């Protein structure tokens, strides 16, 4: 092999030349030729082509479209600070505050009062958010708005900590043991809805956010909740009288459910999904 240094360097030079040629070609096409003709109103200038190819043009943004009147579902933002505060409640202090909560939330819960949920075992973030929504008025309820406005966010956290420590609804950790009959093969339409959802109608599976076997921040566990309350809240989401679900997941889904489905879903979850095979 003519191992003279002449050829050693020249082949290396050839490789670099080929490579620069290929790279130059790709940049030429990618940043000059192709983006030039992407404008709907004729070819862009060289500078616009480069900006477009780098993604610095944001065509949709400059539209400044006129927006319908703003409606804010909730003022809660799941930043780390909010989560840390909501989780940082002191259960003992919460128990003291909960004394007057129990006036309604303990005795009534056993009955089928549709507007009073069971709080025992409720997730801290859920309690904290609902109280804050009552305070800010994004969730409407005569007595609850007044109570929420009289408490401070630290109180919310304490009450949330207290109720979370109470036995009742299981904490939703998003895990569940693998179990058959959780797919569309299940003949029971109710179980299909809870565990597999109904993509034909665009309905997500309840369990994928509320559990068992699915966790979403801010979504309460529903098992062992008050059945009438669940049915009534689903109704409220469907009609929009309750609208504090951040980014509208519940209103979007509840609107697609039939009243019978709402009732059977509520009673199934209230019975703790026990009898579901």
């Amino acid at each position, binding site marked *: 092999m003519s191992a003279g240094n002449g050829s050693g360097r020249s082949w290396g030079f050839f490789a670099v030349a080929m*490579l620069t040629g290929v790279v130059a070609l790709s940049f030429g096409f*990618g940043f000059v030729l192709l983006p030039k003709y992407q404008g709907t109103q004729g070819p862009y200038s060289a500078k616009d082509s480069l900006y477009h190819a780098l993604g610095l043009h944001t065509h949709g943004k400059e539209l400044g479209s006129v927006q319908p009147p703003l409606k804010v579902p909730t003022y809660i933002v799941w930043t780390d600070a909010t989560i840390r505060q909501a989780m940082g409640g002191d259960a003992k202090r919460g128990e003291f505050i909960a004394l007057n909560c129990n006036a309604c939330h303990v005795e009534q819960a056993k009955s089928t009062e549709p507007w009073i949920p069971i709080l025992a075992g409720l997730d801290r973030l859920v309690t904290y958010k609902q109280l804050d929504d009552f305070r800010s008025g994004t969730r409407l309820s005569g007595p609850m708005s007044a109570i929420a406005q009289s408490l401070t966010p630290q109180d919310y956290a304490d009450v949330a900590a207290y109720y979370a420590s109470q036995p009742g609804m299981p904490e939703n950790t998003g895990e569940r043991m693998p179990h058959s009959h959780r*797919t569309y093969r299940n003949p029971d339409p109710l179980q299909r809805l809870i565990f597999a959802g109904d993509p034909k109608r665009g309905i997500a599976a309840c369990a994928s956010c509320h559990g068992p076997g699915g966790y979403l921040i801010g979504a309460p566990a529903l098992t062992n909740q008050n059945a009438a309350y669940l049915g009534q809240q689903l109704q409220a989401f469907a009609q929009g009288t309750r609208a504090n679900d951040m980014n509208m997941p519940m209103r979007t889904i509840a609107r697609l459910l039939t009243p019978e489905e709402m009732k059977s879903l509520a009673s199934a979850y209230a019975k703790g999904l026990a009898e579901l095979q």
Partner: protein
Amino acid sequence: MERSRLLSLAHLWAAFLCFLPATGLGLWQLLMRSPLPVPVDDPNAYYASLTAHGSIMAYVFPTLFIMGFGYAIAVSALGRPLRGENWAWAGFVLCVVGSLMALAPIAGGRSSILYTFYPPMVGNVWYYLGVAVVIIGSYFWVALMLINFAAWKRENPGKPVPLAMFAITTCALLWGWTALGATSEVVFQILPVSLGWRHTIDAGLARTLFSMTLHAIVYFWLIPAYVAFYTLMPQAAGGRLYSDTMGRIAFVLFLVFSIPVGMHHLFMDPEHGSGFKFVHSLLTFIVALPTLLTVFTITATLEIAGRARGGKGLLGWIRALPWNEPMVLSVALALLLLAPGGFGGLINMSYAMNAMIHNTSWVTAHFHLIFGGVVVIMYMAIGYELWPRLTGRPLITKRAACVQLWLWFWGMLIMTVPWHIAGLMGQPRRYAIFDYTDPGVAKMAWLDILSVVGGVILVCSAALFFYVLARSSLASAAESISPIRYALAVNPPARVHPLLNGFMFWNVLLLALVLITYGYPVGQFFFLHNQDAPEHSLTREMKR
């Protein structure tokens, strides 16, 4: 007998031991996606199984196999004991421990985030620590390959490095460079979040860093299959390698062009402009060259063997080839699978055309056909080739081995062709279950059922593969086992151009290319002043 054969054997046993159950998971997943009845039909179990199937088939199985094969090559091709064998064992232990660390939370359903990391979705911290430990273990192998390569070159100045060693060192170097992408994503972005030190993550930067690994890892898997093409098949077919030089050029092209193509996985992403997407698309066309070169060189090699065995006429040599040799049969079947597999790749990489099939089942079918087909069928053939030399016992049957390879070939085609069609019909990717009462989905029912048939054949084939190796390991020892030997080229070069005998020059080119093609795409995230996304864990890993 081979030196340090126990080291290679341990790697191969570990690789195939987790490969077999992973094929079983694959079949269960095919059943879940089909209208057929299936036990434990739970979508959550599917996503956990898919995470396990993907993690094993993409990280654990190929990495362990390639490390084992690399050590076997280093010892036999360089004809000297492996330098740093206890480091090699340490790397092996790390890989096994890392795999178990990763698989534990998956089995517990605590890390069903699939295997391609979807920040801001975050799984259990042990999964990421496990993957990081496997990668660290594999870096031991990268270091040892480079050390042995350099040591041999110092002792044999001016001599061409044996092609097999040159190729596997290219593979090690490629993996060394490309793993930096995914590793930096895991170490700098995901681990801090899953350990609770940070609570937000830049999904755009994470996807871009992962894309640096996502394609080059495919060539990390493919190169060992090509090592068998170039250096083990010619003598099994009874011929000689058509061109040693062109083989080295192909491996060098892989090294230089594998990483700066990664953004063809991000064509449809909102965090990049179309400019660099086109640059990566064009470079992906270039990285198709070495495969096209190899197809011709290897077919020519087969032709030499066929004609040397008396094959006449234009294609008469095909019949004359020894089709009962597993290595020859597997190379032919791999080339046949490479055609449709490569075709899918050509479509995926063609810039705007990616929009037709992005994240549909077409993509899943493509990488099953080209990795599960072309690469894995060669891993099996390499397994058959190395087993007698590593265990000191002859392969009990070559006929069963050939039947197994044919089953794998047909199983892979029957599974993936309908899958490609379903992808074109708009079947979205990574769905656990399909609602076949929807007419749009019902149209694909027969395709998903056909894929299950393919899956059944594949699992039988995998079981037969395991049986042949296991039975051969128990057979009585024999002294007449020939050592691992490598093919002669038609014109074995006395000296090879210095650029085809070392990597310094190519490393420089590679780094320059990666800087040019990934510099801005990665750099933009540091001045984009965008807000990071809050982390989301599916199974409430974030206890605060």
